[in-house]
């Protein structure tokens, strides 16, 4: 941040203090202890210790990178010092915690936590062990900055693969066990015995971890040359064959998606269904926020309207008895679906009209208010005969297509339904993006006044963005209602809107592949790590802030959006924006 040059000692002290603060915070929040339940590599490292390691590695490398000094020994020394200072905070915390009972204030400050932080050692040695632990990993962070990029990337990829596979070990086990093809095969059995440690949530075995690391990092090391080779070979082909190859690859991808539920097992299929519902919503919000630049914080309202429409129109639990709604025509899923989409779309237009004149911040708050009003109304006694109040609506209809769907399991049924919906919505979103309408949206996003001056009709442009986003959310809501089997007002709170917004932002605003990636990372992964759900929104918040500060364009950005975001990014990035944009402005691409 500051351009002042500071001595290695001061830098190390500052970075170490920040690292210590972060470590103390995460420890007192109970993250280290909760994560410690999960082994990554059995007997070597748990997720909790890995969290601390990650802190020291990150701040160690930051220390090394911010130093003007380039000598390796100085960098390593300063980073080791930073790590040790970070751990010094934890030593202080342990000593304090053993003298004073902190639990009335911090419920997580238990004696087990102190024992864990001391690595199970007794007092004097353990402090030394803790400090050297910090120093070693701080220095490791600096070490990473010293090796060339060519090697650093593969090492990181290898570690990430080990962590992911170690984390998801039980899931892999369940998936194998639930598949009749694998469960009885002796070969699969031997392989999984080699890779995974015995016991519940015990992670990889030592040998397994080594193999995973080696394979992943060698592949990552070879990846650039492999890709170059493949590219030059395809470019050498005649155009017709290139086309066939691309079609074939797409076809293969579709076939994989179609047969996937057979391999995933019921649990993973269910998780992918939830991910796809969020993908549907995120694709819709991507039109509103990503394409048209209208920040909508009440997006969940349209999802709720879709779900409630489906619920009210199809539920069979109708009657005047307590907890049941008084009116419901009992339609089938397919005849209610168009209404769900249509009602959400109408709600999108209705919300759109009063907010047409608002921009940015005001829009965000008013849409947030709209989302809350929908939830409050659904929850209130005033509408109880129609929405069921806090008891909600049960037993919405299940989609059926005669003999075609009868052979499918419930998860499989929704999998194919949702896959079809996602495919359709992606197609619509791409066509919209590349249409005249899509260009109008992007013009409005970049500068409303200029867009209007260029003949873009603001009213219809904005309303169409709201309407199409709302329709997609309505579709998602309708399927969600049917899949979950019950609709409660509290499933539609602000956090859901923020969850979808985070998917769009982290994936990359305005980028369709980005949104899909975002929903896998921000919804699929937390769904698989359900036991840590307490920390989900904490991590979301941190990710949103970090993303905006360092990479506002998202993980998989659309090229246009990236340009816009770096155009006006402060005076210090002037040279960069010169490279990215021509003097003609953003429209000249």
């Amino acid at each position: 941040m500051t351009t002042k040059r500071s001595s290695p000692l001061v830098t190390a002290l500052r970075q170490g203090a920040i690292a210590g603060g972060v470590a103390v915070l995460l420890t007192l929040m109970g993250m280290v202890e909760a994560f410690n339940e999960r082994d990554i590599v059995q007997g070597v490292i748990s997720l909790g210790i890995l969290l601390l390691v990650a802190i020291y590695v990150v701040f160690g490398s930051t220390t090394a990178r911010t130093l003007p000094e380039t000598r390796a020994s100085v960098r390593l020394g300063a980073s080791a010092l930073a790590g040790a200072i970070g751990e010094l905070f934890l030593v202080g915390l342990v000593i304090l915690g053993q003298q004073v009972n902190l639990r009335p204030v911090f419920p997580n400050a238990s004696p087990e936590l102190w024992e864990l932080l001391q690595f199970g050692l007794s007092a004097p040695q353990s402090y030394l062990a803790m400090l050297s632990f910090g120093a070693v990993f701080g220095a490791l962070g600096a070490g990473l900055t010293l090796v060339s990029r060519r090697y650093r990337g593969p090492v990181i990829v290898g570690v990430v693969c080990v962590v992911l596979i170690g984390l998801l070990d039980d899931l892999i086990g369940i998936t194998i066990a639930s598949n009749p093809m694998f469960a009885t095969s002796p070969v699969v059995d031997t392989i999984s015995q080699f890779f995974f440690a015995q016991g519940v949530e015990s992670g990889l075995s030592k040998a397994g971890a080594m193999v995973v690391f080696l394979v992943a990092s060698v592949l990552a090391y070879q990846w650039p040359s492999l890709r170059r080779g493949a590219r030059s070979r395809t470019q050498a082909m005649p155009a017709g064959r290139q086309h066939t190859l691309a079609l074939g690859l797409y076809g293969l991808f579709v076939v994989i998606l179609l047969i996937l539920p057979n391999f995933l097992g019921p649990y993973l299929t269910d998780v992918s269904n939830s991910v796809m519902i969020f993908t549907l919503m995120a694709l819709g919000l991507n039109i509103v926020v990503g394409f048209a630049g209208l920040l909508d914080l009440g997006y969940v309202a349209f999802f709720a309207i879709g779900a409630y429409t489906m619920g009210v129109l199809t539920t069979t639990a109708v009657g005047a008895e307590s907890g049941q709604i008084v009116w419901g025509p009992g339609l089938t899923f397919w005849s209610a679906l168009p209404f769900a989409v249509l009602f959400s779309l109408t709600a999108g237009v209705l919300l759109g009209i009063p907010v047409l004149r608002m921009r940015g911040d005001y829009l965000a708050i008013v849409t947030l208010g709209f989302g809350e009003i929908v939830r409050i109304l659904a929850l209130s006694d005033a509408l109880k005969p129609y929405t069921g109040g806090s008891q909600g609506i049960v037993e919405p209809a299940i989609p059926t297509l005669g003999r075609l769907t009868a052979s499918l399991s419930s998860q499989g049924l929704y999998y194919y339904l949702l896959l079809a919906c996602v495919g359709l919505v992606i197609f619509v979103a791409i066509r919209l993006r590349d249409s005249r309408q899509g260009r109008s949206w992007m013009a409005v996003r970049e500068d409303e006044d200029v867009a209007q001056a260029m003949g873009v009709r603001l009213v219809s442009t904005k309303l169409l963005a709201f309407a199409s986003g709302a329709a997609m959310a309505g579709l998602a809501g309708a399927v969600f209602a049917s899949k979950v089997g019950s609709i409660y007002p509290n499933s539609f709170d602000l956090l859901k809107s923020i969850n979808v917004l985070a998917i769009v932002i982290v994936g990359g605003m305005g980028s369709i592949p980005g949104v899909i990636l975002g929903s896998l990372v921000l919804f699929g992964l937390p769904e698989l790590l359900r036991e840590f759900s307490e920390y989900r929104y904490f991590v979301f918040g941190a990710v949103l802030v970090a993303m905006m500060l360092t990479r506002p364009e998202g993980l998989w950005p659309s090229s246009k959006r990236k340009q816009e975001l770096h155009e006006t990014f402060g005076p210090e990035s002037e040279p960069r924006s010169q490279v990215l944009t021509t003097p003609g402005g953003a429209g000249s691409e």
Partner: protein
Amino acid sequence: MRRFFERYDLVDVIMWLIAATILIAALLGSIKTIQSGKYSPATWVDLGISGLTQGSVYALIALGYTMVYGVLRMINFAHSEVFMSGAFIGYFAATWMAASGFMERNPLLGLILLFLVAALTSVTIAVLLERIAYRRLRRAPRLVPLITAIGASLFLQYMFRGLFGSQVRSYPPMPGLEGAISLPGGVEIEYVQILVIVAAALMMLVLYLFTQRTRAGLALRAVSEDKDVAALMGIDVDATIVRTFVIGGAFAGMAGVLYALIYRQVTFYMGFVPGIKAFTAAVLGGIGNLPGAMLGGLTLGVTESVGTILFLDGYGVPAPYQLKDGIAFVVLVLILILRPTGILGERLSRTKA
């Protein structure tokens, strides 16, 4: 037909129709409620006083929104968490003082200390927010700081939940604040309500004097007028912005204690609803305008408290108080349609939000 639409902007017509419908509905509801004679005049006065109390708290929080909006042109979404943090850490101070008997011995000093602790906590959080999250984004496109603020809000909320647990914690009873004064006509004013209204009024007076009569206040006004010109005039813009966050944080922290004294409990998500209401209050009064925030807060508090029953009870809506939180949002939408500059409005019409 098209020419007709171009002359009379259709959107304006629709918006005015929406606004008119809501206003007429509210008016008819009020007439019906009053005719029904279900409520005595004393009930209305009681509701009005509790609305004023609530509104004073909104006003104090709204000042933070409005001041930050003035200097940075952004909605500090995390301000509701600044408010929450003050109330939350205040809880620990209050229980500690109550347990050690300090509160019993010096109730006034204890109360002042409680305010100080809460204000300090909130100021720390507000300043850290500015330093870590917002400072680097001053020249970023508008959506970027807004999303950062939403992220920071989420982060702070769940940080408090992780650190202190998710249970609802109850404030200890404050000596001297129990009980109420009975006025003729059956009206009762609780001591807490008096404390809240008086404290809020005093704080606002201090702030008003600060902004109008001191050099630092002048600098603050200059920066919210135009940052670049203010910098040319030799004003340290960074320091002024930090000062804004300090004042906003201190007010939010003290508002947190007042809020906790009314409702007697704190949780990690307690900031959200008052935060949104306070923002509405800031817009209602005219964002960027200090007296406006105060007026907006009081107006919103009373509308919410009295209006919920006045507008809805006549229609026979069951349990109208459940819709109380909805009223604030309807008011916000109405204001933005009818008078986007707010009651004491200025500035909003000129800025490009």
